[in-house]
């Protein structure tokens, strides 16, 4: 099974503005697997996703991020994207004046490393939008400008479907959504599952796991993964909160 390993994180330490946030994260994701990473606020969840994508503000101080057998920790975000890593943002940013379709075509071309004729691209985009039940008018709007919370998250998933990454990191894609929007987005995530793809689902709440079935659930706290388990772990967290896991792992966290 070792050759099916897509991502292997070992002893990862990272800091932002000199402040250590991740303090030794170990995690292995194989192709076809969905891993949920849960944790209380301030546990380092968003730092982990930013560090994996290569945000310049975060500094890796120790450890490795091995993606498809190569340590990628010195690569820029765009190099990582071209290697097949994708991050669905918790707070996608507006880029005024740039139409979604133009951005998506540039992005798909950059990631695939080749020119795609505009007609061909339009057809691909239409197909994916249809799959995700997104209206045509969407592609003419400016990136995330005036988008509702749900629209922003669906735009992220649309990018996931177009870019076809091997590793998709979804950073709190469920946050800020009402239950209907959550179902829609969860459904979109399910559609993006593939035997070739590993998915890291980062979330604060258990509720999205009612709609997306992860293979493994990890609890991140104090910059470390302190517990891993199956679906039952999520339910336990929902019922009892995070305190008992934190207590149980107290020596490790301290």
């Amino acid at each position, binding site marked *: 099974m070792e050759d099916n390993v897509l991502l292997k994180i070992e002893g990862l330490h990272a800091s932002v503005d000199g402040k250590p946030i991740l303090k030794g994260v170990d995690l292995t994701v194989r192709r076809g697997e969905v891993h949920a990473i849960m944790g209380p606020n301030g546990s380092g969840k968003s730092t982990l996703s930013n560090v994996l*994508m290569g945000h310049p503000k975060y500094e890796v101080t120790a450890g490795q991020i091995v993606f498809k057998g190569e340590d990628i920790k010195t690569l820029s975000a765009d190099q990582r*994207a*071209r290697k097949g890593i994708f991050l669905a943002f918790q707070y996608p940013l507006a*880029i*005024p*004046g740039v139409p979604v379709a133009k951005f998506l075509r540039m*992005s798909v071309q950059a990631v695939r490393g080749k020119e795609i004729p505009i007609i061909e691209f339009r057809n691909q985009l239409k197909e994916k939008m249809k799959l995700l039940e997104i209206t045509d008018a969407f592609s003419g709007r400016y990136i995330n400008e005036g988008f509702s919370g749900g629209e922003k998250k669906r735009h992220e998933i649309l990018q996931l479907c177009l870019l076809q990454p091997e590793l998709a990191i979804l950073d709190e894609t469920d946050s800020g959504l009402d239950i209907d929007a959550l179902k829609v987005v969860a459904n979109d995530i399910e559609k993006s599952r593939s035997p070739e793809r590993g998915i890291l689902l980062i979330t604060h709440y258990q509720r999205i796991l009612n709609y997306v079935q992860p293979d493994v659930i990890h609890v991140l706290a104090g910059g470390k993964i302190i517990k891993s388990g199956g679906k039952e772990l999520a339910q336990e967290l929902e019922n009892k909160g995070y305190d008992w896991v934190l207590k149980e792992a107290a020596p490790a966290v301290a």
Partner: protein
Amino acid sequence: MAPKTNLAPKDYKYGFHDVESNIFKSGKGLTKELIQQMSHMKNEPEWMLKFRLKSLETYEKKPMPAFGNTALLSELDFQNIHYYVRPSEKTEKNWDEVPEQVKNTFEKLGIPEAERKFLAGVTAQYESEVVYHSIQADLTKQGVIFLGMDDAVKQYPDIVKKYLGTVIPPGDNKFAALNSAVWSGGSFIYVPKNTHVEIPLQAYFRINSENMGQFERTLIITDEGSDVHYIEGCTAPTYSSDSLHSAVVELIAMPGSKIRYTTIQNWSNNVYNLVTKRAVAYQDAAVEWIDGNIGSKLTMKYPAVYLMGKGARGEVLSIAYAGKGQHQDAGAKMIHVAPHTTSTILSKSISRDGGRTSYRGLLHVEKGAEGCKANVRCDALLMDEASRSDTYPTMEINEQNVSVGHEATVSKIGEEQMFYLRSRGLKEQEAQSLIVNGFIEPFVRELPMEYAIELNRLMQLEMEGSIG
């Protein structure tokens, strides 16, 4: 003549120059004798010579502007400028008659091609003179006059005499006085009543010599119920010492008429661009200045609209880009004289590599101009820490019953925006270009398609060139 050291940055593709083969080139500096000589060479009527000489006196008395980048202004050496350079004998109607080398320059700049494809008329000015001029025959039949300004003085002296200097008197400012004294070239347009010029007319201004002064003079009059769209473009070779471009543009929009005046200024970074542009709009008339400033060393330009008649509308939509060693001091002025007039100013600026942009604006409402609406918005985008942007808005509102809006934003190109785009595979400069193109989109969408494409391409070159 050996080619001079070309200091053009690799991204300024218009920085080439021709070997000079002028019919006349004045020595450096401005004198009364030169003005008499050029007026004589142009075979001008006596009243024009008088206008020039009186303006020269005004120019000599007027102080330099006390605002803007006075340090850069003080570096401008008026004694080191050739004020009149005559490249050819007369304005030609056929490109084949234009001196070979001048024609080749305009070919390189794509002017004849643009003319064939999407223009109704063209004025091409090289140094001090209009070397080529054309207008579609059906426009002439409708009574539309489109001429080089020098020809207009001879062919339509009554109209020129009646309106020249009425919108911008020579005494308005030092550079308006200078232009009035030594003006040469530029366009004259008159559109008769209820005539619609559907396709744009264009003028293209090219400086070739080093230390050249170009002083074109433009006057556009739209009679009642008519409209016209005029576009101007400008480029120059890159030299190590300075040139001066100082134009005066007067627009007169009669009741119910409309003028759109579009500028894409891309002077090389050794050109001082000190221009006075002003319009008057009478009842229900509209004047739109679409003003793009990409090039030059220092630009000082504040297109103005005097809203003289009820229901008149003024609009300024501008972008300014300042890279290394550039200062774009641009803005707009809206003067509401009559009631129920409206004005909109949207100014966008981008500074990078230590470049500097300023928005300098005036919004004035006269007492009694009730029911006016005015809206001003300035957005500045800073690409790095070394760059600078300032806003100098002045408001003089002398009437209670008006609606005035003002908004100014300064944003730095965000690390988070960049990370977002780069996480989608875009390289640093691709991500920057995309953000910049998006930022100027409200401007670009107002341009005819051919210009929109060209402007986006230009901006992309600026982005690429400065990242190296």
